């Protein structure tokens, strides 16, 4: 009895360590997936490289793609460019959503599109360009509607324009397989409905 008493601190400490250990691996990024299975919010935003061309949710309908929120200001985003480019070469469609950081007049900041285009072009030339096109969200409206809280974040959008997955943080060879499985499932689903899917879409649009 007396002997066991001296083990109490040890046992308490081990229990605490177990908690701390699980705390270390609990993912603080678990997201309320409030947007899953909802359509991509409506938007009308310019193409980053051709600002006179306005893009909307309808432009992107009919194909499965990843919507990747990124910015030059974000090193993590820049680091994942290489891997995303590999994915593009494997046939994964990726659309960029360029996250412009708030310009703070208190710090004398202004927004300069030409300079941004130049920098983006240079960066993509250096690191690889995974993007079919880039949506420029200068006022962060779509980013806001998507509930993006940082960069990078990636959304999986199906052929009907619905959000099927929301990935927070970078995509890398370790975590890609999980997302890839979802991507393949959505692609197969689109192929299964195939032409029928497009017909039904046409049917609903017709009246």
């Amino acid at each position, binding site marked *: 009895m007396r002997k066991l008493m001296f083990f109490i601190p040890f046992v308490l400490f081990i229990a605490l360590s177990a908690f701390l250990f699980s705390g270390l691996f609990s993912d603080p*990024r678990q997201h*309320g997936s*409030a*947007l899953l299975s909802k359509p991509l919010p409506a938007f009308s935003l310019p193409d980053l490289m051709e600002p006179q061309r306005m893009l909307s949710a309808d432009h992107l309908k009919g194909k499965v793609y990843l919507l990747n929120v990124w910015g*030059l*200001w*974000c*090193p*993590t*985003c*820049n*680091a*994942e460019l290489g891997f995303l480019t590999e994915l593009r070469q494997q046939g994964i469609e990726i659309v960029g959503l360029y*996250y412009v*950081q*708030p*310009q*703070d007049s208190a*710090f*004398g*900041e202004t*927004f*300069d599109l030409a*300079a*941004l285009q130049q*920098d983006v072009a240079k960066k993509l030339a250096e690191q690889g360009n995974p993007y079919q096109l880039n949506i420029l969200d200068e*006022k*962060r*409206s779509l980013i*806001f*509607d*998507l*509930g993006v*809280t*940082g*960069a*990078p*974040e990636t959304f999986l959008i199906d052929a009907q324009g619905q959000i099927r997955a929301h990935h*927070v*943080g*970078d995509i*890398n060879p370790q975590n890609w397989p999980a997302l890839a499985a979802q991507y393949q499932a959505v692609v197969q689903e689109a192929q299964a409905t195939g032409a029928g899917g497009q017909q039904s879409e046409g049917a609903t649009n017709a009246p």
Partner: protein
Amino acid sequence: MNPRRKQRLMAVSAILLLLSGAVGAMLYALNENVDLFYTPSQLLEGLGEDKVKPVPGQRLRIGGMVVPGSVKRDDSSLKVSFALADTGPTVTVHYDGILPDLFREGQGIVAQGTLIDATNIQATEVLAKHDEEYMPPEVAEAVKGIKHVAPKYTYPAGTDASAKSGAATTEAKTTDKPATATEGGTQ
């Protein structure tokens, strides 16, 4: 049982009684002072699997983005209200006091306060958060040595390093208070 033993037994049971009483009181006080964290949509839809909604008068913390254009200030006092959203529904936060230095429309904030009704919160404290980047350690490692050319378009002449570029944003400063805690309510 000799008197010494008896005395010791008494002492031990007294200690145990006191200890359990103290721990009980502590846990009670702890539960009284727990502030649950909500996002605006959780506030409206309820939290967790049971969809538990907070009741008016409950103390809570809410975190979300300040909806652009929603900040309304009183002209003669420091009263201010703004809409807060994460994905879709918005709630209104009312505050009387000095907003944090990095409070901006479209930025994330965390407010501490009490619920007035389903969509209104009276805040006693508003904290700004201004870290917008996720940085897993492997990436932090990987980008070291690559990302050093700062974009020039966001900064005034004379300074050409970007605050958000560079790799080592990973660790919070070990000795300081959280950078967000620049504002606080009454003690």
